[in-house]
């Protein structure tokens, strides 16, 4: 979809790992790690929206937060506009903050209940700029106009707003410093459907006007289809497939992507009746003890012996499409990507074969 000789990627993630240590026992010994994100690599080009989808607990949000170094990465590099965010010291990181911002999932929790709207939107301005009171106020009003909030609301507190309006406040705060890259961490998950559309359209509109680059984290597959240019499907801390949107929704390659996308309801009743869902068996293994080999091997309908032994690497199997699956990389078997064979093996959570 994208010409790789074109400008370099704005965001370049290589081998990103975030492990949360587990301490157990009387002496709080370090007995293991929750591998929330395990060796994730991707690029985001300027002006692009990369959708990041996956089920709950697969590491989407952790990945998004690590990109802004709200969590300390265990390993790997995150380059945003040429700066390696993962290794900056505190002062340099603070100076780099304006170019990357975040819109949070829960608009209720992401706004300090004791600050007025003007204070909330103005906080990044007072942290990073030396505007006078009047300039600051003018910028706050400008931001409120941009996200469609009435200027009269500047003195109000977050609890006086509806969910959609609160999310607009969060977006205005994220835009205050003219960022290049915005991580949208499930910005619509806490909103009802009519408001979701408004917020997503606002985000798209702002992207067009300000040339923003988004990492759009969501579990709402139809919404991702609407907004994203390329989509990364995550499973248990790793990227299973990274493909251009249309290609992915048309013909998912990775068995997990197939199963995930088969769950999207069709608006057309005729097609909906013929939609075949792939029901996965079993549970997601614990990220503290992921299975050896492919992460998906415990539930994959097309599992092969090699899947239980060797971890597949993310590789380009078709132009622009990266898949981490032995079905495509190994020559042992020709791809039969229309899944649907029932998983017959019964697998317990966290069991390693």
């Amino acid at each position, binding site marked *: 979809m994208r010409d790789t000789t074109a400008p370099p990627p704005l965001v370049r993630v290589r081998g990103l790992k975030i492990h949360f240590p587990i301490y157990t026992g009387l002496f709080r010994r370090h007995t293991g790690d929750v591998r929330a994100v395990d060796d994730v690599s991707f690029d985001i080009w300027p002006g692009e929206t990369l959708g990041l989808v996956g089920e709950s607990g697969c590491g989407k949000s952790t990945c998004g937060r690590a990109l802004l170094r709200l969590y300390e990465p265990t390993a790997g590099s995150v380059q945003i506009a040429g700066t390696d965010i993962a290794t900056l010291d505190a002062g340099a990181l603070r100076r780099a903050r304006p170019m990357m911002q*975040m819109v949070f*999932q829960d608009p209720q929790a992401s706004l*300090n209940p004791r600050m007025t709207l003007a204070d909330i939107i103005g*906080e990044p301005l007072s942290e990073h700029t030396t505007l006078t009171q009047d300039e600051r106020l003018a910028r706050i009003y400008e931001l409120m106009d941009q996200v469609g909030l009435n200027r009269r609301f500047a003195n109000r507190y977050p609890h006086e707003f509806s969910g959609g309006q609160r999310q607009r406040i969060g977006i205005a705060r994220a835009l205050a410093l003219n960022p290049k890259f915005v991580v949208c961490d499930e910005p619509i998950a806490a909103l009802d459907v009519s408001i979701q559309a408004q917020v997503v359209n606002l985000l798209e509109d702002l992207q067009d006007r300000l040339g923003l680059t988004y990492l759009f984290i969501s579990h709402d597959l139809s919404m991702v289809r609407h907004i994203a240019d390329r989509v990364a499907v995550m499973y248990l801390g790793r990227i299973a497939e990274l493909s251009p949107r249309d290609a992915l929704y048309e013909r998912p390659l990775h068995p997990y992507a197939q199963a995930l996308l088969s769950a999207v309801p069709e608006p057309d009743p005729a097609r909906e009746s013929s939609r075949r869902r792939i029901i996965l068996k079993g549970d997601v293994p614990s990220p503290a003890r992921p299975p050896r080999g492919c992460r998906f091997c415990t539930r994959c309908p097309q599992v092969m012996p090699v899947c239980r032994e060797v971890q597949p690497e993310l590789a380009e199997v078709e132009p622009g499409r990266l898949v981490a699956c032995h079905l495509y990389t190994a020559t042992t078997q020709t791809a039969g990507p229309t899944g649907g064979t029932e998983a017959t093996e019964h697998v317990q959570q966290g069991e390693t074969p």
Partner: protein
Amino acid sequence: MTDAPDTLERPRSQWRDVWLQFRSHKGAMAGLAVFVTLILFVTLGPLIWRIDPTYIDPDPVRMIRGRNQPPSWAHPLGTDQLGRDMLARMMAGGQVSIAVGLVAMSISVLLGTLVGVLAGYFRKLDNPLMRLTDLFLALPLLPLLLVMVMLFRDALARALGPETGTFLMIVTAIGVTSWMQAARIVRGEVLALKEREFVLAARSIGTPSRRIILRHILPNVMSPIMVAATLGIASAIITESALSFLGLGFPPDFPTWGRLLFDGVDYLQQYPERVIWPGLAISLTVLSVNYIGDGLRDALDPRIRGR
């Protein structure tokens, strides 16, 4: 640019809102009125009622005749067992008791908040600071106070004069032995708050820790701090009485409300009013401060404000 910015109300200071809300809280306004009255009574009162609270008639006969007088025009609250004027003693005692209560409470709330916020916010400090808190909680307070008084009273009295020295020592002693409850409550609140997304949002903006604490954490732990502070005044006044009663606070002839209370206990059956007056004064102070704290807590919370 549909409407000009100058037609809009500028973002105003939230303290005006706080005051407006505080004024609408009836209990808090009543509490404030009572508290101001008490303060005026103990500060301006002695300027009008000019009897020395420690004056004992040097003539033994008149002294014995003037003991335990019922209320009269000469002594509106009567006299005590040494013929000293009770009204004057109430005023002088109130000055000390209210000052001790306020200062000791401030010390203990400041210490408690500091320890609680540091322990809650900085993971590395959590364990050492909370063990220190446990240590203080486990110490038997009264013996500790006794030791402190024994060690420092004379030195301080020599350096700063008997009254200031004793005052400083007592408020410090009460302050440093009563901050633990506040610290624990504040730490718990901070632990919960720092995981909230608005703190994460502030970090993603690049707000440094000290300003996250001042701007986002502290205003949101205001309620428990207020509660701890208002209760702290009461317990500080009572602890001061207990210390004075044990002979370790202010000198015996130096009136405080707690002291008057304990002196009056011996005559409870004959002259109950001698217990009632200081008791009433302590209760009124505590109650009014509690109501003020309640009103302040509501006024500082924008979710309650304007309701």
